[in-house]
């Protein structure tokens, strides 16, 4: 292969393990590709020196016969994961100069598996957004363009740097996080694959917190196999996160070719949402036919509280964010306002100067719904709705093994198109937020292109801790879709 960046993670793993390619050559290929792709603004911080040093260490291990499962494979890390000695911004000005003195558990797991770090990827500020347009470090731009157009499109969000970097072949895979769709939305609009695992599957320790009862780490990669390989390495029980679950992590990759014969796939009727792009509705139907043709049984199911998921989310997530973000006070770390006249002034100005518009808005909403006199009307009611939403899934899973749904209501939109009105942007997550509220795993796979040549994704929602079956069904969709299109290298400097 002439261009090593075209490898899938699995192909690169096999090439490195059999010494056809060194990690150094592979890593250098990505370092160069990243330098040439600065127009996409996918990385907030590039770490080529660290990458090449890690690659050398990997090559030494391969030579010594002590290679680990991801030995020498270059990855990108969402800039929400704390990386020891490497600036971690969370996409916010408030953490502009923050250099963690510890490593997040998930990224440590990847390094312990031999992976190589290429740098820190762009994201919406504190992961609050669906288009990567709230980042204090500028918009990340999708490598995809509509046919005959040069309009800049969003890469999805909040993990926009992760999806753009994978789609543009700037890394073999990337870490991401998902609070309301932040792995799945970017994957869907960039023709990449991403999984939000069950809540508790990955440790949240060392990942900058947004909404702790919804946040979950997961990978974005080129294929279902690559995503399965990465999740296996990322997942673990962790003493430092009491919500991480002590269940064995299966070898997801080993089972992906198992097929869907005999699986019952539910089609939730409430996901036929008005305003959904007709081409997405069509690919959803096609997806069901593909699974049926491979031996699955398709059943219609009902999730009656679906329409309440988004408003529930926009109470719960800001409430948790307002408490999590209380730690940014200008005292212990982060931005500090100059010449404060007293302690309150220090707090108020450090936070106002450091946080962007969307983050400020969510902190105020969260503070309001948790404040005395309003807690029961908003937050308590939302938590009760959450119970009802979870029950919907439990009822549906009496009739089926997983659900097939669209991932986004439309393909990638233009930068600037939705950012002016918060609620319009929030509605883009209509198919993804329910899963976070119920703590369930969901996988997004590319399923086709629209007439403008832009990728469309489908979402599979599974039972708790049944990621293995999701990967099997995702692989079946991938085989049927047989998508070979990649974005053209217009960005190359």
């Amino acid at each position, binding site marked *: 292969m002439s261009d090593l960046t075209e490898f899938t993670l699995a192909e690169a793993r096999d090439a490195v393990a059999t010494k056809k390619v060194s990690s150094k050559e592979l890593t250098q290929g990505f370092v160069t590709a990243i330098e040439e792709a600065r127009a996409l603004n996918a990385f907030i911080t590039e770490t080529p020196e660290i990458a090449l040093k890690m690659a050398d260490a990997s090559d030494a291990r391969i030579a010594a016969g002590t290679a680990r499962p991801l030995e020498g494979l270059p990855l990108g890390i969402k800039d929400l994961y704390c990386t020891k000695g490497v600036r971690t911004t969370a996409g916010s000005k408030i953490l502009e100069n923050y250099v963690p003195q510890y490593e997040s558990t998930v990224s440590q797991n990847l390094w312990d598996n031999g992976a190589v770090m290429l740098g820190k990827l762009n994201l919406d500020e504190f992961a609050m957004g669906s288009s990567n347009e709230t980042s204090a470090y500028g918009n990340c731009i999708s490598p995809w363009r509509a046919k005959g157009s040069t309009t800049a499109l969003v890469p999805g969000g909040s993990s926009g740097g992760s999806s753009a970097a994978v789609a543009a072949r700037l890394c073999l895979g990337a870490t991401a996080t998902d609070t309301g769709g932040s792995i799945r939305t970017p994957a869907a609009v960039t023709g990449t694959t991403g999984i939000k695992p069950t809540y508790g599957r990955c440790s949240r320790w060392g990942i900058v917190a947004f909404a702790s009862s*919804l946040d979950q780490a997961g990978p974005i990669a080129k294929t279902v196999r690559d995503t399965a390989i990465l999740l296996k390495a990322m997942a673990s029980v962790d003493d430092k996160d009491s919500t991480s679950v002590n269940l064995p992590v299966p070898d997801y990759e080993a089972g992906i070719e198992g097929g869907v014969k005999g699986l019952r796939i539910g089609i939730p009727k409430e996901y036929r949402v008005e305003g959904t792009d007709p081409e997405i509705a069509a690919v959803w139907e096609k997806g069901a036919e593909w699974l049926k043709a491979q031996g699955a049984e398709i059943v219609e199911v009902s999730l009656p509280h679906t329409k309440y998921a988004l408003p529930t989310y926009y109470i719960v997530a800001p409430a948790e964010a307002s408490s999590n973000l209380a730690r940014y006070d200008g005292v212990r770390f982060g931005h500090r306002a100059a010449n*404060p006249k007293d*302690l*309150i002034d*220090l707090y108020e100005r450090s*936070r106002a100067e450091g946080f962007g518009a969307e983050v400020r808005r969510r902190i*105020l909403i969260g503070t309001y719904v948790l404040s005395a006199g309003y807690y029961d009307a908003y937050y308590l009611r939302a938590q009760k709705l959450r119970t009802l939403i979870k029950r919907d899934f439990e009822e549906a899973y009496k009739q089926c093994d997983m659900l097939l749904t669209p991932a986004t209501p439309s393909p990638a939109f233009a930068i600037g198109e939705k950012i002016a009105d918060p609620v319009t942007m929030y509605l883009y997550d209509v198919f993804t937020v329910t899963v976070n509220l*119920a703590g369930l795993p969901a996988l997004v796979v590319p399923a086709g292109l629209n007439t403008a040549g832009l990728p469309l994704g489908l979402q599979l929602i599974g039972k708790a801790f049944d990621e293995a079956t999701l990967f099997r069904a995702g692989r079946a969709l991938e085989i049927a879709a047989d998508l070979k299109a990649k974005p053209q290298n217009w960005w190359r400097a």
Partner: protein
Amino acid sequence: MSVDKETVRRIARLARLKLEEERVEPMMEELNGILAWVEQLKEVDVEGVPPMTSVVEQRLKMRDDVVTETDHADALMINAPGGEDHFFVVPKVVE
């Protein structure tokens, strides 16, 4: 329910977020847009429904009550703006 300007000022104060006076009204409108939209939750009968307290059912983990962390004081101070030695520095609070 909607918020008025006074409420916006009050919650900004609670959140320790400086809000310039000219930003109060636009923020009030943005918040009311979001609050009007979440209002639809009122139509659901939640009588007798327990609020969710944990997404994944599991017993809260317990650990032995022993010290596991070593001294990280130097590392903790590296990112402290205006920190001195092993002290976080704030404006004077006691007259």
